[in-house]
């Protein structure tokens, strides 16, 4: 992930401090886990503005560690669809601001295979576009990758909305759509697409400031964005686990 060289040392220093704080707050692990055992999100490098919110996945990971038993890697790992190693990251993240050039057929085939063998892709429109910009490019690629599985709004009752938090709304930096859309393969959501710039709500500077305000809902909308992120990560790792019959009576009681 390219960074301005000027900030590198200071960022590294601050990151070190933040990590220490995390460790102090969560003294539950005596030693580091093997890197391959952590949830490392692969962030797809496309030929457009592929990383508009560089701190977003890092911050989501921080929240996953704080709130759940998921063990996230410190940051996203940039991946190229046409390079080997894509399958080391069953969870992929495709973000962008503005349109991006079409994937090659080989890239599309690689992404298709990844998803068909059980992979998961979160798509996030940082530009809050609807019908143009990133939205148009993303829809073009998703339709080409999984032509038999069109994007469809995820209904409120879907297990995605109860994998960890009981969700009844959407969050993000903006609220372009009050729902997320998804492409299903074999009864499982393989692709989840938010047009609400989840990454913009998650992004936090290393000085501890939120990088963008959330509109129109403010901090509640940001909290919801994190909850959506937690549920999406849980869904990637647990799929429909929360639909198992044993959970039902408990969940119904809380929803009523």
């Amino acid at each position, binding site marked *: 992930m390219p960074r301005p060289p000027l900030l590198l040392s200071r960022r590294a220093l601050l990151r070190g401090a933040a990590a220490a704080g995390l460790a102090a707050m*969560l*003294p*539950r*692990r005596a*030693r580091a*886990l*093997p*890197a*391959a*055992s952590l*949830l490392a999100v692969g962030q797809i490098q496309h030929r457009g503005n592929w990383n508009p919110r560089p701190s977003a996945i890092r911050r989501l990971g921080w929240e996953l560690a*704080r*709130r*759940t*038993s*998921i*063990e996230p890697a410190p940051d996203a790992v940039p991946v190229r669809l046409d390079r*080997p*190693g*894509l*399958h*080391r990251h*069953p969870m992929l993240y495709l973000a962008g601001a503005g349109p991006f050039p079409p994937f090659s057929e080989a890239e599309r085939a*690689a992404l298709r*295979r*990844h998803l068909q*063998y*059980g*992979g998961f892709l979160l798509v996030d429109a940082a530009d809050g576009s609807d019908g143009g910009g990133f939205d148009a490019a993303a829809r073009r690629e998703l339709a080409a990758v999984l032509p038999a599985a069109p994007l469809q709004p995820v209904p409120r009752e879907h297990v995605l909305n*109860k*994998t*960890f*938090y*009981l969700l009844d709304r959407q969050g993000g930096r903006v609220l372009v759509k009050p729902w997320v859309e998804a492409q299903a393969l074999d009864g499982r959501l393989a692709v989840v697409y938010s047009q609400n710039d989840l990454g913009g709500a998650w992004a936090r500077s290393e000085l501890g400031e939120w990088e963008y305000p959330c509109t129109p809902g403010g901090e509640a909308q940001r909290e919801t964005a994190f909850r959506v992120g*937690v549920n999406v990560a*849980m869904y*990637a*790792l*647990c*799929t*429909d*686990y*929360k639909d*198992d019959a*044993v*959970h039902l009576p*408990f*969940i119904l009681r*809380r929803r009523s």
Partner: protein
Amino acid sequence: MAFPVEPGGPTRAAAAGAFLAEHRAELARLQDRADVEWYAFGGDVAPADPAAAAKGLPPTGGRTDLLGALEAAAAGGGATRKVAGALILSDGADNAALQGGLDGAARAKLRALGFPVNTVAVGRGAPRDLAVERVAADDFAFVRNTVTVEVTLRARGFGDQDVPLVLRREGSVVAETTVKLERGKDRYTVPLRFAPDQTGTFVFTVAAPVFPGEAIVENNQRSFVLRVIRDRVRVLLVAGRPSWDVRFLRGLLKQDPNVDLVSFFILRSNTDQPGPQEELSLIPFPVAEIFGDQLKTFDAVLFVNFAYGPYRGLEIDRFLPNLRDYVLDGGALAMVGGEQSFGDGRYGETPLAEVLPVAPLDGTAEAEAEVRPRLTAEGRRHPVTALAPGDGPNAAVWAALPPITAVNLTRALAPGAGASVLLEAPGVEVEGRPAPVVAVREVGHGRTLAVATDATWRWGFVAAESGQGSRAYLRFWNGALRWLVRDPSLAPLQVEPDAPAVEPGAPVGLTVSTRGADWGPAAGKKVSAELRSDDGRPVARGEAVAGADGTARLELVPPGPGAYKIVAHAEGEAEPATAAVAVRGAGPEDADVAPRPELMSAIAEATGGGSSALPGGELPDLALHEAEVVEIGRRKAVPIWDRWWTLAALAGTLAAEWVLRRRWGYW
């Protein structure tokens, strides 16, 4: 005819013989009026000698077919013979066309005979007898699911009393009930319910006690063969946290239609701060239910990166002895690696260490290393690590798999513990030897599996990137699960009868197949098989040597009708293979022994014949057709009774020899 004419009286055959002897002279005089032909009948009709019949015909027929006998007797002797009438001597215990009584069709057939049928009914009043008349059960049942066996009990000559009815599986009682007998009612249908707890093919027996003075003792019980199969393998999956390893494993199990999966993932621990509980979809982990009462309902328990320690308040360690006992009693446990498993989860000092296939090294951490695991000598021939048939192809599949990324440090158990390391990690050493990656163990009556890494998912998903697909991963876990739950198709010794049921007198053909320690056909191995009766007694035995394909053929002759357990042994094989076979009873299903004088008189009435009944009755006034006057050119009188006319006298062998009617071999 072997039954008494009335309770406590002489047998019906003897009574019929005495009657014929008494009326022989009268019957002989009929010779003046017509030819008298003598037949004996049961299921078949055969000419009989009247002198012998008067001494009493042996009651040996397996069936009583009144209408068939009449039709056969009428048809005998060619078209020129005309039948003036028939006299039939029988107990009327028809178990063919007239079993249900004289209906319209039967009446029409009797009339179509075209001659009067005179009847002498032998026997009145049913003998005192209790019989398990019918057992309705399916051919197979699902283990742990309630099976209903519907039993029809017939009681004759009993007053108001209670009769206990038991259902036994090879000697042990699995269900019982009490039937309240009422005067005047002779058939009772009662359900017997039970839930089989073992898979396999078993002989079940429904039995009622034998009361003094019963006509037939043998029909107080009836056996049948029931194949108890697994409906679905019930698996408990417990994961310490969400991970790719458990994500892909759960996906595989969830997709398998033969697996009934109950999973629990720890989604947050005590230190996590997700916010208000009511906004979460989380449920408390029902530790006491799952590891207490419910545990034995699972065929296999999988711990995936699950530590018992960190959950204060849940006190999971209290249940570890229970889990160990579950394994020793025949359960299956797999421990899959991760930073909360094996020594990392401090299982080394717990009761689970007594059953695990490796010794966890407490206080160690996973070794983080890219390792290509290597098959051990045992691993090359074990079904868990058989990803492709044949040594070479299997090794090639393993060599092509993506490396694993972490190994929990454990130590192989000493020889004699029943454990084998199948896959090891070269380069990751524990006490100078490669650390085990996959190990299995037979312990007590159960089985355990250790997978000391959290990276088996890479054999599927990562392998798929290079075009290998995820077959190796699916094969590995399917094989592991089948081995854990003792899938019968993986047993090294198998026995199967050629058919589930054989005819009486026919041998039971068996195929015994054996596999050696390398899971290949065990050519030249000595095998034996025996048939065991309901009480566990061997009744037939045979030996053979397995051929090149590892199978041997045996033929055993069962002593008589019934259901038999088949038990096969092979040299060097501790576990016998079992199956079951039924030998059908010779007689008809219904062994109703009651005489039916009313049927006999109805037959007579329908055809215009006379009737009487024994004991006490006389020869009825025989109705016979009058001879017709035949004119040949000119008026000429011909004798009234011409020699062309025939009286068919039929003495029934009647109610069959009871031995042949025993109520055995219900299938």
